[in-house]
């Protein structure tokens, strides 16, 4: 297992600069969007937060599908690595990377807020000190949800790419991520629909949108959403491994 982990981490490290640039680009853009719209970086998690999580999901699928395209996954099986260890190593590597990059994203996002402190606010007036206090409190309360939701989304990328086992894995993951990005709109179109509400509650990507909705509420509790993200990740892992365990590889 440690051999697989070190190999996968090494592979990721080769792409680290690209991943870091993507992360910085998203966080700076997110800060600019938030500052220009609300005058503060703490007024909820805007669409850039969700997009960042989904980009990570897509990236996971693209990375893993390369192992199937090049057939390099064979090299692991032939020398005796078990399918469980192979699946788990992918999952650990991408979840850890997602967690670290999310932390970097948030750090740069907050710092960038200071950079853009002078940008024109499209919303009428700056938030009051009381509003700002609630925003800030809720933002930091929502951070653990975000730090869990993004790694949880990588389980979807691993699931799709390990199930399809070819170049389609990467493409389908990206398409799925794009589709998920638009699902929170269902809630806007039809706020009374219970099914839409349920879908948006259980999907980690939609939960990030919910964090924006709750940013002004004083009794917001993040624990429920963290647990849902963990449950989502566990179900995706179990389902993905169950399929991969019996799959015929070329």
């Amino acid at each position: 297992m440690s051999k697989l982990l070190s190999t996968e981490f090494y592979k990721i490290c080769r792409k680290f600069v690209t991943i870091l640039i993507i992360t910085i680009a998203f966080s700076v853009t997110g800060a600019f969007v938030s500052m220009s719209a609300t005058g503060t970086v703490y007024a909820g998690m805007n669409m850039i937060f969700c997009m960042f999580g989904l980009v990570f999901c897509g990236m996971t699928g693209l990375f893993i599908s390369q192992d199937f395209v090049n057939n390099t996954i064979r090299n692991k099986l032939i020398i005796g690595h078990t399918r469980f260890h192979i699946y788990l190593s992918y999952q650990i590597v991408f979840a850890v990377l997602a967690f670290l990059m999310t932390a970097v994203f948030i750090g740069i996002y907050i710092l960038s807020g200071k950079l853009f402190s002078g940008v024109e606010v499209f919303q009428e007036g700056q938030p009051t000190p009381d509003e700002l206090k609630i925003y800030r409190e809720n933002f930091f309360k929502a951070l653990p949800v975000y730090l869990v939701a993004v790694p949880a989304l990588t389980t979807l990328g691993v699931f799709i790419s390990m199930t399809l086992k070819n170049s389609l894995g990467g493409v389908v993951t990206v398409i799925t991520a794009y589709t998920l990005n638009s699902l929170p709109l269902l809630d806007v179109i039809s706020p009374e629909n219970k099914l839409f509400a349920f879908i948006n509650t259980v999907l980690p990507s939609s939960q990030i949108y919910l964090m924006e909705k709750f940013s002004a509420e004083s009794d917001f509790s993040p624990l429920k959403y963290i647990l849902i993200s963990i449950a989502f990740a566990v179900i995706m892992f179990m389902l993905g491994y169950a399929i991969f365990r019996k799959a015929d590889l070329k």
Partner: protein
Amino acid sequence: MDYVLKTNALCKHYRHFKALNGVSMHIPKGAIYGFVGKNGAGKTTLIRLICGLQYPTSGDFELYGVKNTDKAISGSRSRMGAVVETPSVYPNMTAEDNLKMQYRLLGMPSFDGIRELLKLVGLENTGKKKAKHFSLGMKQRLGIAIALCGNPDFLILDEPINGLDPQGIIEVRELILKLNRERQITVLISSHILDELSKLATHYGFIDSGRIVKEMSAEELEQACRKCIHMTVTDTKILARVLDGMEITYKILDEKTADVYAKPNFSQLALALSKENCEVISMEEHDENLETFFVNLVGGAVHE
């Protein structure tokens, strides 16, 4: 005899298609086992099962005495290297980096030996050239080098000379022979190019329609393919007595047929047999090579 691999009635079905239908094969330790079969006969499917890429529908196999259903099979597989169909390489990495990746997967403590491996397969001068720019032969040799990481005792090569130029074929052949003789590596090699296989193999397994039709050693095959006169007579006991008298080697096949491994004076032989009241019913020259032997065995044309 010690066997590296033994399969027992191995079956693999894809819905209604039976890719393997009760394959039982035995690969002795230290052998170069030539695995011969038409396209679609089941060669690659069997190799995939052994490598753990697929699971058998029924039957089992033993690798170094460990059953495939046993958890310890992972340990046995770590003693194995394989190139299945196309070489599995990272196209954006150099030959050296590809080997380093395999070393990491194997948990090797250092990268010592990579230079030697590259030299062994003739890729020591590829420098910073990425694998995606390699020729097919170079990729094939890189695939073999990856399979050789960790000093395996058992090497599986699926069609290793496919697409290689004549020089490449010679190089791969010499490499396989060198590995077998100098490092005592047991090799399972599947190939369509029977003439090439006959220059390497010490044992053969012939597969057709998912079944092993025959397993034999190179000596047995040589014996079967030996140039001879196939004779049908009324009594082979008399024939044997006459041939002994003429000091000619032969093999009695049954009461009426025998193979005679020389060209005797047929008039003298016929006369001697006639004196003993033995009639010659037919005589035909028998001259087979691996290709014709295989065609006769599976009863069809060889598909290249």
